[in-house]
Every structure is written in C-alpha cells, then in structure tokens.
C-alpha cells in the first residue's frame, strides 16, 4: 500500500510540470525535427503536416532541404564562420577570466562572495542593454572612437570603423558571455590546495613553472566547463550580430531568423536549427568527455 501511494504522489507532484514541459518543450522540438524533412508551404511556412486541402493525411517526407544545405557551400561556410567567432570569443573570455578567477580564489574568504557578485551583477541587466552599450562605445561619433582615430592619425594611419564589423561582434560576444567563464573557473580554482604550490616552490619551481605545471593542469575541468558554457550560446546567438555586425558580421543565428521570419522557408530553417543543435550537443558531449578523462 505505501508503495502504491508513493507512486501516486510521485505522479501527482511530478506529473503536471512534466506534462507542461513535454507539451511546450519536447513536442515543439520534435515537430521541428519533422519539419526539417517536410516541404515548404505554398505561401511560406510549412506544407500542412496532418492533411492537405482535401483533408487526406499526408506523411511524405523529403531530404531536399538537407540536400540543399550540403550542396550549397555558402551555408557550410557560414557555420564555419560562426564556429570561428565562437572559438575566438571562448579564447578571449578565457584570457580575461583566468586572472580574475585566480584573484578571487586567492582573496580572503570574506571578500570572495562580494567579488563574485560583482562579476554576476552586470549579467542581470538586460541582454539588449549590454549590446546597446557597445553600439554607443564603438559608434563612429563616440568619444572612444574619435580619440582612437585621432591617435591613429598622429601615426599617419587611416581612421578605422569599428561598429558593424566582425570585431564589434566578437567584443559583444565576449562581453555578454564573460561571467560564464569566470564562474566555473573560480569554482575550480577555489578548491585547489595551496600546499601543492608550496611543495612545488620547495622543490625549486619558479612562479611560471608552478602555474603551468600545477595550477593550470588542475584547473582544466573548470576551463572545459567554462568553454562549453561560452561556446554553445555564442554559436547560436543572433541579436549581437544583428545589432553590432552589419552585413559582414552575420552568423548562423541570423540566417535561421531570416528563414523563419523573412524568407519563411521553415523546412530549411529547421535544417539549419538541427545542424546547430547537433553541433551544440556534440560540443557539450565533447567537453564532458574531455573533462571526465582529464580527471582520471
């Protein structure tokens, strides 16, 4: 009796949220998988999935959209470009975040929470506001850009444009994702035993060696976690290139948005989304696998 009652409780409590997430998350994602194998509708969108005008069921599937994706190098190139932007973003985030995470981890305990909070706080301001801020800073009339160009002029160099370039996109990506790199790094570095560094010092290792042979290898799980947390969202982003990138800086997210809202070729948009999902899942899996391997 208690067992049966327990099961009843389990479904009474867990059932409703589970059902909600099945309906409003799992099913939409599955529909998108099916949509990627369908034909586009006559007036854009999707050919009716369940029935056509005569009311008869239609289940014909096609790999035409996938064929188009793989035959037109333009899209592969776009994925490679997005991949490169996300990779550069991850590396720049790592370079900025590492010293910061190290400093927080080595600060007195009573200061750490405040220092971590200071990293998270900007993250809670609206995403668009943070991107807009860079639009101001990198804009052609901004104080920063005018000063920079005056300086370049002194050395006889041409003035530069920063807004609406890939450079602006990378800056925006780094800015928005930086906390995701700092937090896992800090969580890892905080646990390091200082005795290891003392031992290395006693054995004659200088600061450089102590970092590269002790601290850094031990922090690798944090590096992988941070890299996955930065890389995956950066790969699929569309608002940052949309606002800061101009025509030159577009990424895969912009083309997905365009397929769904402007061109209205939903099957092809779904194909692009599927490829993006597969890449994201593969990278998350890879990060988890490498992290597990490095621990043993």
């Amino acid at each position, binding site marked *: 009796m208690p067992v049966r009652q327990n099961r009843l409780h389990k479904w009474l409590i867990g059932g409703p949220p589970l059902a909600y*997430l099945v309906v409003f998350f799992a099913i939409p994602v599955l529909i*998108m998988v099916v949509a990627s194998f369908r034909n586009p509708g006559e007036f854009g969108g999707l050919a009716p999935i369940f029935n056509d005008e005569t009311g008869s069921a239609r289940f014909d599937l096609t790999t035409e959209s996938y064929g188009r994706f793989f035959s037109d190098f333009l899209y592969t190139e776009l994925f490679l470009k997005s991949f490169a932007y996300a990779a550069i973003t991850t590396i720049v985030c790592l370079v900025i975040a590492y010293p910061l995470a190290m400093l927080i981890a080595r600060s007195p305990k009573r200061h750490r929470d405040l220092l971590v*909070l*200071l990293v998270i706080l900007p993250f*809670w301001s609206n995403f668009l506001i943070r991107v807009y801020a860079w639009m101001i800073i990198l804009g052609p009339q901004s104080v920063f850009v005018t000063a920079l160009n005056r300086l370049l002029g002194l050395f006889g160099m041409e003035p530069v444009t920063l807004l609406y370039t890939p450079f602006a996109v990378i800056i925006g990506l780094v800015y928005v994702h930086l906390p995701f790199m700092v937090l896992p790094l800090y969580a890892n570095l905080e646990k390091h035993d200082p005795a290891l560094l003392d031992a290395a010092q006693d054995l004659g290792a200088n600061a450089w060696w102590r970092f590269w042979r002790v601290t850094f290898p031990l922090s690798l799980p944090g590096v992988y976690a941070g890299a996955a947390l930065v890389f995956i969202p950066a790969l699929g982003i569309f608002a940052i290139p949309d606002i800061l990138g101009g025509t030159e800086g577009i990424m895969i997210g912009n083309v997905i948005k365009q397929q769904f809202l402007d061109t209205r070729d939903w099957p092809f948009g779904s194909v692009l989304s599927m490829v993006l999902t597969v890449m994201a899942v593969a990278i998350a899996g890879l990060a988890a696998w490498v992290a597990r391997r490095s621990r043993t």
Partner: protein
Amino acid sequence: MNRRLGALWAAAIFAYAFLYAPLVIVVAYSFNDSRLNAEWVGFTLSWYGKLFHNEKMLQAAWNSLLIGITASAVSTVFGTMAGYAMYRFRMRLLPLLILAPIAIPEILMGVSLLIFFVLLNISLGMISIILSHIAFCIGFVAIVVRSRLAGMDESLTEAARDLGATPWKAFRLVTLPLIMPGVVAGALMAFTLSIDDFVITFFTAGVGSTTLPLQIYTMVKIAVTPEVNAISTLLMMLTLALILIASKLSPGSLRAE
C-alpha cells in the same frame, strides 16, 4: 610575490572595468542633454519625461509586467512541484526536461515554439508569449527549490509524519514554510528572466504584444535616442532591486548554476 599579486590585481581591475564601463556609459548618457550619445552637453531629465509620454513604451512596459507576473506565478507553482518531485522521487525524464531548455541555444526554443503555435493555430500574442516564458522559467525555479530542499533537515518532515500528519499536511505546514525563501527567490528569478527575455519573445510575439526588450530592440535598430538609455537605466534598477531581494532570501541560489 607582491609584484605578481599586483599584476593579478591589474588584470582583475581591467576585467571589472570591462564589465562595468559600458553600463555606466548607458546610464550617464541617459542624463545627457543631447540627441547623440557622443559629447557631454549638460544634465537633463527630459529623456525620462519623454519616456512617460511615449504610448508605445508604456504599452510595452504594461505587457512586460503582465507577462512577467503571470509567467512567474505559474512557473513558480510548476517549478516548485518539479523541484520537490526531483528531490523526493526517482524521476527519469523530468531532470532532462528541466535542464535541456537551459542548455540548448535559446534560438532553437524560440523557432520550435513558433512552428508549434502556428501549427496549432494559436495566434501569436500575449498568450503564446506567456506559455513560452513558463516553459523556460520552470527549470530555473526547480533548480533553486531543489537546492533549498537539499539543505533542509529531513527529520522535521518525518517527525510531522510520525505525529500523524498526512503527507499533504506535512508538506503544507512543515516543508513549504521551510523552503519558502527558495520558492520566493525562484519566483523573483522567473520574473526577472521573463521581463528580460528577448530571443524567445522575439519569435513568439505577434502584433500588439510588444514587450520592453522588443521595444528596445526596435528603437536600437531604427532610431537610437537617449530614451533607450533612460528605459535601460530604469530596467536595470528594477532588475538590480529584485536580484538583491532574491539573494537576501536565498543566499547562494545565485551561484547555484
């Protein structure tokens, strides 16, 4: 040793400056008496005044508030149930469905919900936005509530049960009051996430259901005026206040992710 610590401090100060300078600039220019975000001309509050006479902005703020309150209320109930279920029972599918929406790129959730609503003939507007926001907020509430439950003394509930309380009574009178700070923190977090969401709203919104982030996006894309700075500043203050309350109620929940 000191020299190295100095270098570390220099790098850290650079990082903090990088994080804060852009936001300071946005706030500063909201008080600048010039249409351009360039030179400092003089102090004014006129951009805030204009904001309160901007019909579209007020409508967007009202929509955001309505969506935020509804979505956070529903997702708090579902999220608390989910957090409790994951803590108390062996759930196989639920943890996956809690984590997946947080882990995958946001745009995927946006476009899949767009297809879903259009196929079901649910017109895009307030309802579709609220339904979508609930879907991505449940996970965050569940995680906060679960971590609160994990720190709870299990014997208190057991004692209530030994003294003859029904499971429901034990939950309502013992467990729920104990996890309440976590539930409230989760609700505030859900409200913040909903008010702030751009990507998923962008795909699930229709005509007449513009939210604040969508309105900001339109203004940034079409005509930038310091009104954007003014609304940004107000929105930042609101979020900051909510987050500080949430972190007071449930210390550590902000770092849970």
